């Protein structure tokens, strides 16, 4: 058990000097230095590490008049050629020193800078680089899976005849895909990468703390031969994000619950927010809960618990107190480590006051009868530093699914172990991005398969954090960007002489 003394030991700030970089607005491949800049600082030292030119919404709207050109320059290449270029870009993204604004970054420097602005440990930043590389390297297989084996030339041409003798037509719904990207989760970039080989340009608004991936990816793609006119990057304020979502005919937005609610039902916007991912133990398996403990820990803790695919709820009809205690024993003692420590598993809250307010919200909810903080005996969870705060893994036990903490997700390893009768689970779990169902009960399995509150369903002992890249994530990007429609064609009669 680790107590308060250990917590009092503050780690040494990494002695690394990051090159100060100036990142421009990128307007269809052309750099534009703005008179207005936002400074990005190292979350531990406060030292400036980047000055980011800020765009305005008017600039973006005006530039979007050239959006058709982004698709046109990509259509000068075949989809297969673009796939090969993206695969090469993936290799460069992982291994090469690439331009970053007015400087250059090696892969190591990239991970250090990303860690310094987002609070994620460096080794997790590197793991995210691997993830992006993997998706790019498997781009052909991914597109084959997402299009269900469609000849990609049909996407280019707009229609074609499949081998089964059927004419199919897919119409691009927008020449560009708008992206309002997050600051806290570098892993999400994998979702938009398939757009380029489908000859759809990109209009990106990077997260204020994580501009690095869009810029590095753009540099890798340019180095691999993808025409630079196919993408734009507009760092800026909320008005810029709103303009992306209003003026691009197809966009992905990453944000909180309010963002998701705001764009719910808007066919032009695919909003990604909290996942509320869960593990459900069926009554047939719950007595063997101990054999699933590693899976639970991984689902909660992996990637600093920041992802929407991290598990925030473990639901069972019995043994919930023991499960919570066992999880607390594993997760509770985990301490904050420096960002360059390969063992570091927790990320800092770099926005002033955010870590503290998250913890206050949890403490308030813990006052509800039936909610218990199980990691309490492993020392304080909130670890406040001079310029940031950490929250150590937190396990709570909820006597009933109606308790507020049973339906929460936070940006750190947090899990509620919820006591709930099996028959109530399907209706009570609420929106669930990833559901791992530990059950052999055919009836329960079928109910979960048909439950529209669940997006990804794992049947069997698969961690919620384990993604099969050949399957769609929160909607199929191909279906979002292209519309299947009817197209009939026949020969014109010969013109009369």
């Amino acid at each position: 058990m680790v107590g308060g003394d250990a917590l009092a030991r503050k780690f040494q700030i990494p002695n690394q000097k990051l090159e100060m970089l100036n990142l421009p607005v990128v307007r269809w491949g052309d750099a534009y230095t703005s008179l207005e800049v936002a400074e990005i600082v190292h979350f531990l030292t406060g030292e400036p590490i980047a000055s980011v030119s800020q765009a305005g919404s008017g600039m973006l709207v005006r530039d979007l008049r050239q959006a058709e050109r982004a698709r046109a320059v990509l259509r000068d290449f075949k989809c297969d050629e673009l796939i090969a270029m993206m695969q090469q870009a993936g290799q460069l993204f992982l291994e090469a020193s690439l331009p970053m604004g007015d400087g250059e970054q090696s892969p190591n420097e990239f991970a250090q800078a990303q860690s310094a602005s987002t609070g994620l440990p460096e080794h997790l930043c590197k793991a995210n680089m691997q993830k992006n590389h993997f998706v790019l390297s498997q781009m052909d297989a991914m597109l084959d899976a997402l299009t269900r084996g469609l000849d990609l030339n049909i996407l280019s041409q707009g229609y074609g005849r499949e081998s089964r003798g059927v004419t199919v037509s897919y119409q691009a719904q927008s020449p560009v895909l708008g992206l309002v990207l997050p600051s806290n989760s570098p892993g999400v970039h994998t979702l938009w990468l398939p757009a380029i080989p489908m000859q759809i340009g990109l209009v990106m608004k990077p997260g204020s703390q994580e501009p690095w991936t869009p810029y590095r990816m753009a540099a890798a793609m340019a180095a691999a031969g993808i025409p630079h006119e196919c993408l734009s990057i507009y760092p800026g304020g909320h008005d810029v994000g709103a303009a992306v979502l209003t003026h691009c005919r197809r966009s992905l937005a990453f944000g909180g619950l309010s963002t998701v609610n705001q764009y719910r039902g808007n066919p032009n916007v695919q909003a990604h927010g909290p996942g509320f991912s869960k593990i459900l133990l069926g009554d047939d398996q719950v007595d063997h809960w101990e054999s699933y403990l590693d899976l639970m820990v991984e689902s909660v803790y992996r990637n600093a618990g920041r992802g929407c695919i991290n598990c925030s709820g473990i639901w069972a009809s019995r043994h919930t107190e023991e499960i919570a205690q066992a999880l607390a024993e594993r997760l509770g003692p985990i301490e904050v480590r420096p960002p360059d420590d390969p063992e570091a598993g927790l990320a800092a809250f770099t926005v002033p006051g955010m870590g503290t307010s998250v913890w206050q919200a949890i403490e308030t909810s813990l006052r509800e009868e039936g909610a218990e903080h199980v990691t309490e005996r492993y020392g304080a969870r909130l670890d406040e530093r001079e310029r940031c705060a950490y929250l150590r893994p937190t396990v709570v036990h909820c006597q009933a699914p109606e308790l507020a903490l049973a339906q929460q997700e936070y940006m750190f390893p947090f899990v509620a172990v919820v006591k709930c009768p099996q028959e109530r689970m399907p209706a009570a779990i609420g929106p669930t991005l990833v559901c791992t169902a530990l059950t052999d009960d055919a009836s329960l399995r079928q109910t979960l398969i048909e439950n529209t509150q669940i997006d990804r369903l794992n049947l069997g002992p698969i961690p919620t954090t384990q993604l099969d890249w050949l399957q769609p994530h929160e909607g199929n990007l191909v279906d979002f960007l292209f519309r299947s429609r009817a197209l009939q064609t026949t020969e014109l009669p010969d013109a009369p002489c």
Partner: protein
Amino acid sequence: MTNPNVAEAAAAARQALDAHTYETVQWHFHPTTGCPFWLDYAKKLSFDPLKEVQTFADLQKFEPFQDEWLRGGPVRRWVPQAYQDKPIYVFETGGTTGTPKSRIAVNDFRTDYELFSQTLPDAYFPPGANWLMLGPSGPRRLRLAVEHLAQHRGGISFCIDLDPRWVIKLIKQGWMEHLEAYKRHCIDQAITILQSGHDIRCMFATPKLLEALALELEARGSSLQASGITGIFSGGTEFTPQWTRFAVEELFGGPPETSGIYMTPTYGNTLMGLACSKYPTAAEDYKISYYPPQPRAVVEVVDFDNPDTTVGYGETGRIRLTTLTREFFMPGFLERDEGEREEPCEAYPWDGVSGVRPFHELAEATTVGVY
């Protein structure tokens, strides 16, 4: 202040300000001319304003003006005795929730805009040209003021109805599609007016609406130039150098000498009046320096923690406004903005302010630049 002519003019301006301050205080605190609010207020003071306010510096004897005093009635308590028989206007600020702040006026808005008119170059704001007013209307003074400006210059003003309080509500509710629809509704009306053969050459627009108008004209294959606009008076919300650069270089197509469009950024509010600016240029990175219509209004840049101390030239501080007219006396109002103190210049031999932006301690809670 290296230019001796400017230094001399600044000293003269200071003397004029002191004299004007004395006269204004005498007016507002004399029982035959002053308004009930200040006459009542004087009874609680530990000094006699009629005797102890001789110069502008003496205004520091007053506590900072609280704009909260302007909420609620009776509004006549702000009408000077000498103007009780005059037709009175009331103009409002804010008011998204609760009681708005009210300021009475008789003729101030006309005087302010006639003074401002003198700063407009005739080449781009031709006398006799008609105007388009594309900004907040309703209980705000801007609509009447712009209309008077147009009339003063021999033109006629066409107005678009716009309710900024509704815009703020739309933003707070997150109803962005309604916001977009309302903006489009306003811009559609503006384009209809511009294309209706009214020979409109000049306009007022807030930066956001000017941008929306220019973008929509472009989307329809037209432009501000093609619509005949040559002079733009803009203000009402925050103006940044980057936005000004975007407007000049991209929306207008270049500086006035090449695009034929001249834009003058302004800073002000219903309480103070109108501070105009030197023309922002690429050579100065589109820096915008505002100068108030002294001695009717004074802008000071003061220390954040000690508002009675002015910061040095080029230094950053909070903006403090003082209004000194016979209709309205407002000593030392700490505005919700900050900026850098600017030196007097030939055209305006008194202090100005540049880099105006929301006061950093309040910025988070403020919805700005919405219309």
